[in-house]
């Protein structure tokens, strides 16, 4: 095993069975101790040019230098630890926002407070693959957003930068 550590450690009578992914640029040439995201077992690894030169060797009782960015359990419905879960995965610090989602963000208003159709789903009238006219009439088709928009205008939250 090399670019992943598939942890088979038995903890509490159960096999950990978690895949810890060693992302290529961080670990391409790397030496140190990495902790399993699920059971916390610490492994010593020494990677040279992407190959496991030494390890993974269990280092019971020692502290991990690093955690994986991502880990999952393919035999358990692919349940996973996203980046930045405390004590399990390390955070990805160079993110575009303080919040990482990984799925479509539902935004009704742009940061200027103008309505943006960045939310889903479409209304039931859209059907499976509906086709409409070009203009999305917010007032008629999304009355709740229209109402919210009027509130925003009143509160002065709509800006031109």
């Amino acid at each position, binding site marked *: 095993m090399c670019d992943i550590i598939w942890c088979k450690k038995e903890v509490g009578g159960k096999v950990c069975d978690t895949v810890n992914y060693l*992302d290529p640029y961080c670990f391409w040439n790397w030496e140190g101790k990495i902790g399993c995201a699920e059971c916390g077992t610490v492994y010593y690894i020494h990677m040279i040019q*992407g190959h496991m030169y030494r390890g993974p060797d269990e280092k019971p009782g020692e502290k991990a230098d690093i955690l994986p960015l991502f880990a999952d359990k393919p035999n358990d419905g692919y349940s996973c630890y996203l980046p930045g879960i405390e004590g399990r995965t390390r955070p*990805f610090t*160079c993110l575009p926002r303080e919040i990482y989602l990984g799925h*479509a963000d539902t935004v009704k208003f742009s940061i200027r407070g103008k309505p943006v159709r*960045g939310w889903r789903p479409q209304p039931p009238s859209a059907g499976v693959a509906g086709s409409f006219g070009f203009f999305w009439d917010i007032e008629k088709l999304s009355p709740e957003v229209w109402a919210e928009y009027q509130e925003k205008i009143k509160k002065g939250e709509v800006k031109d930068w």
Partner: protein
Amino acid sequence: MAKEKRDIEINSRADTLPLMGPEVRPWPVTPPPTPEWVMDNVYAKRKAQEFGKFLEDNLRLDFVFDKPEALQGLRVMCNGIWQISRMFAASLLGEQGAEVVHIEPPGGDPLRQLTPFGREEYMLMDNVAGEPCGLDFLHEFRNAKSITLNLETEDGRAIYKKMATVFDVIIEAWPPGYMDSVGLGYRHLSKLNPRLIYCWVGERGQWGPMKDEVSKHGQWILDPFSAAADSWIHNTGFPQDQCPRGKGGDPMRSGAWLPSYVCGEQAAVNIQAALYWRDGVSGEGQFIEVTAAEALMDILDFDIGWYGFNRSIKARTGAWDPNLNQYEWNPCKDGYMMIGGQTDRLWYRIGMCIERELPEFGRLIHEDPLLKEMGARNSLQGLIKTYSITTKWLRDINRIEAEQKLMEYEIAAGPVLYIDEVAEFPHFKYRPWVNTIETQFYGTVMYSESCAAFQHRTPARVKDIGRPLGHDNGEVYQKFLGIGPLKLRELKAKGVI
């Protein structure tokens, strides 16, 4: 090729220089494939012999000089120093057949003196005056004439004014307002020549609060100030999560003068659009300003829209792309291997290629329900998963092996190549893209071929590269202003040219 053995003593760097010229180390080292080979092994495999023959017969670089030039008759004056963007804009027009004249001050453009790490031995001497010329300047000085003119003298300004009346296009790159302050701006020249198309190029602009400035000692702001001003550098480079900060995990400029090239091409497009409007519609010229910063902002993908959407500020992602999976290069045995394929059709083909040798890829990647949807694969966890296992496959193979294996599956994949490998890549030397030219003044020069050279009717072409400073004073001033040799001497003595 001579296989004769020679004894060589190398005591210093200077002793190695004569061993490296094109005479002793010819290009290409190995000959490119023949058209017959390509016909049988490439076109025939896809039953495209007829189409391939049509392309070869009509687009080959060998035929460019049998064809007309698109911009024949267009006169372009390029006036300025330092900015390579002005030179690229002029090159693009010159390669299409425009008559380009570069105006430099009598002292010459300082770009002529730039050479990597200040090494004079990597400059080329011209065969007239023996003046050294830096390679960046040389490479971008295409199909053009070089004249000198001192715009600080009254006579020089008068000459420039006269020139402006007989030229179609002026590309200018002096600090903001300089040409205007000496009475040679667009508002002055357009009165003399209403058909004049005048284009200023620079980093951030000639007006407004962040306009281009010179330091108190007169130093210009140059590339990549523009890329620093619009988040381009901010989001290039490896994140500190992949590479420690200070050791590669920092914002990064492009190795090339990319902002200048983006600026120059945008200038060339706009000049030609203005020309189309002048010749096809209005008969009037116009004033154009192209800045590298804005030209880059135009091509920042969706960064500006994304910020407006939910305050996201695009972060650097190294050799990965946050929008596409797969679409990256990752390290392999002998360098880096780029792989791309986003749609299901292509993504699974990459996977099949890898899975054949690394069954784990199928187990961990293909079987994961999250990764089955194209959009979802773009998530950070999708990238980490996919690329960790892809690299596990790559670490055992060289770039060429990876390329061959992926080519079997018709995947867009390519190695990260260095220039020696670029120059020897069969396809590149077949067309060729990296080409050599016997120049009038600097011997044989290797250069990057014009990108618009492959055309049916009016291909762009490179006719000469580089010019000693002011070499064409005699010809140009005689041709356009009727200034003869004696008068020229006089002007030279007065420091006008």
